[in-house]
């Protein structure tokens, strides 16, 4: 187990990168304390798998250093880094039994037979694979195979970190939930550093204590799930996390107050800008918008009932404002007024939060 640090990592798949768009991964420095469960969250193609492969050593970064406990491992191959990685599609050695699959990483490292047997049985027990230990791995279902991939990662007791690359993609929904809680359980049991790549916010937010949101090859925000929800640092985080995402409304500035549709909006902090931005937006999550006697005038256009609450879509001029209505309350028809919770209302200049 180890602390993992990236120092000024940059990566390009192009031979001689020239423009900004050539960099699949823009310059970043990140630290993972020993034993964190961290998620890398972002849409497809944002560079999260690239980042993961750099940590595991499958990919050599164009620039920068990877440190495990202050030891520079940038040019060390994956097997020598002592990490485990579980891939999007389950990888099993078809001709081997489940037992041999689990034993494979240990055998390659010359571990003695007794230890191998003990570890394999321990892991099989943990993953409920005991009953099929001596069947051929090729015949298993997708989730069975993914459990084997996972088991091969866990079987070495001394790994520095376990990396997951969207491991639940091919798993049936009801098993997804099971495997996810299994992962969480394993993390609590072992305390290993786990880095989990996903584009699914539910997966990321339930698994991780620290989430790194990535967008177009750059880290946009690092924080706990609550921080990401309550104070997105960038409009991207605002609309990527949460369902529905954050409302973003163009606004103007009147002194230190934001103004939208002729109303002065109270925000968390007074707005103090250093430069004049190209765009200025108010961001407020649907959870923090309420119907009120007075406030912003809107027309209610759509109500969608999603069980515990309803999503109400309203319109103010060209702007759509969504809000969540708790179960049992009904949305007014036609014209209504909205109020924003000032504690959870932020202003974004050129996409970034104004503090």
């Amino acid at each position, binding site marked *: 187990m180890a602390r993992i640090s990236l120092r000024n990592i940059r990566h390009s798949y192009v031979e001689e990168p020239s423009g900004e768009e050539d960099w699949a991964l823009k310059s970043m420095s990140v630290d993972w304390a020993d034993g964190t469960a961290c998620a890398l969250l972002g849409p497809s193609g944002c560079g999260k798998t690239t980042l993961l492969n750099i940590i595991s050593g499958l990919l050599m970064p164009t620039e920068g250093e990877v440190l495990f406990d202050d030891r520079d491992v940038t040019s060390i191959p*994956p*097997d020598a880094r002592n990490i485990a*990685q579980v891939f999007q599609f389950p990888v099993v050695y078809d001709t081997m039994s489940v037992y041999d699959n689990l034993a494979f990483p240990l055998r*390659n490292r010359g571990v003695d037979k007794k230890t191998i047997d003990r570890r394999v049985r321990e892991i099989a027990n943990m993953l409920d694979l005991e009953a099929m230990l001596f069947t051929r791995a090729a015949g298993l279902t997708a989730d069975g195979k993914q459990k084997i991939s996972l088991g091969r990662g866990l079987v070495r007791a001394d790994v520095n970190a376990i990396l997951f690359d969207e491991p639940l993609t091919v798993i049936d929904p009801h098993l997804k939930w099971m495997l996810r809680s299994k992962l969480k359980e394993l993390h609590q049991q072992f305390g290993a550093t786990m880095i989990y790549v996903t584009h699914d916010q539910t997966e990321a937010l339930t698994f991780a204590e620290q989430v790194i949101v990535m967008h177009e090859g750059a880290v946009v925000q690092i924080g706990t799930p609550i921080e990401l929800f309550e104070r997105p640092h960038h409009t991207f985080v605002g609309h990527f996390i949460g369902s529905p995402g954050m409302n973003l409304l163009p606004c103007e500035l009147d002194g230190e107050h934001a103004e939208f549709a002729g109303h002065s909006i109270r925000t968390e902090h007074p707005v103090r800008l250093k430069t004049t931005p190209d765009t200025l937006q108010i961001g407020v999550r649907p959870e923090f918008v309420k119907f009120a006697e007075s406030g912003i005038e809107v027309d209610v256009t759509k109500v969608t009932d999603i069980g515990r609450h309803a999503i109400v879509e309203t319109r103010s001029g060209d702007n759509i404002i969504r809000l969540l209505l708790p179960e049992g309350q009904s949305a007014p028809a036609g014209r209504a007024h909205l109020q924003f919770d000032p504690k959870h209302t932020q202003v974004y200049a050129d996409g970034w939060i104004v503090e």
Partner: protein
Amino acid sequence: MARKTTNQKAWFLVIPVVLLVAFNAIIPLMTVVNYSFQETFGDNVFFWEGVKWYEQVLRSSRFHDSLLRQIIFTSIILVIEIPLGVAIALAMPKKGIWVSVCLVLMALPLLIPWNVVGAMWNIYALPELGLLGRIINGMGFDYNFTQGPLAAWFTTIMMDVWHWTSLVVLLAYAALSSIPDAYYQAAKIDGATPWAVFRYIQLPKMKRVLTIAILLRFMDSFMIYTEPFVLTGGGPGNTTTFLSIDLVKIALGQFDLGPAAAMSLIYFLIVLLTSWIFYTLMMNNEEK
């Protein structure tokens, strides 16, 4: 239970296929079966002979010799071509422009007509004129494939390896390129040696195509005729007379239709049985 509708008219749709198969396979084959049980002295007069020709062929040392030569030849080329083909496929580039260059180069020998291959190697290996012949003689070996049995075998095997290894390469390469990257990445992380990667990832993924490759190469080489006929004509003596060459000598050279027909059927059954046993074994193994 739902009632099944029966409509016997569907049989009419099968008729064209039945006719086609009858004309191109069953009728010619039955003619051979017919000949194999009878004796003729021309004028379309036939006498029933029972299994006499079969007994004669199975007891003849000439048949035993060519069958033995055939088995040795096929075994040798399989032992060379399959591992060599896999090795070349493993060494070929995975991406970039060199992929197409290599693939085209590999496909070339397969596009050359079989008698041309025979003629090419005949000239190539001539001891005085041919490049190969002169090089081998230049190295101090006494090499003349028209006179030395060993030289004749060597040349025939070289020719077959040159002509057909590409087939194994192409099949193996196709199987290799269908292996997802994640397998290699996982193996790297599991600390697998290159040998383990070959043994547990590449070989299992190639198993099906290699089964097909072995079958194809077995059948083709077991029935080889044109190339050795052009290259050596079955000589020197009878040393490169394989089953097909022998069969043609009996059927067309000596016009012994009965023995030739019996031999054809035995020959056919050997190929069929061996292929079936091999295929069943490989596929059974897969299900376990």
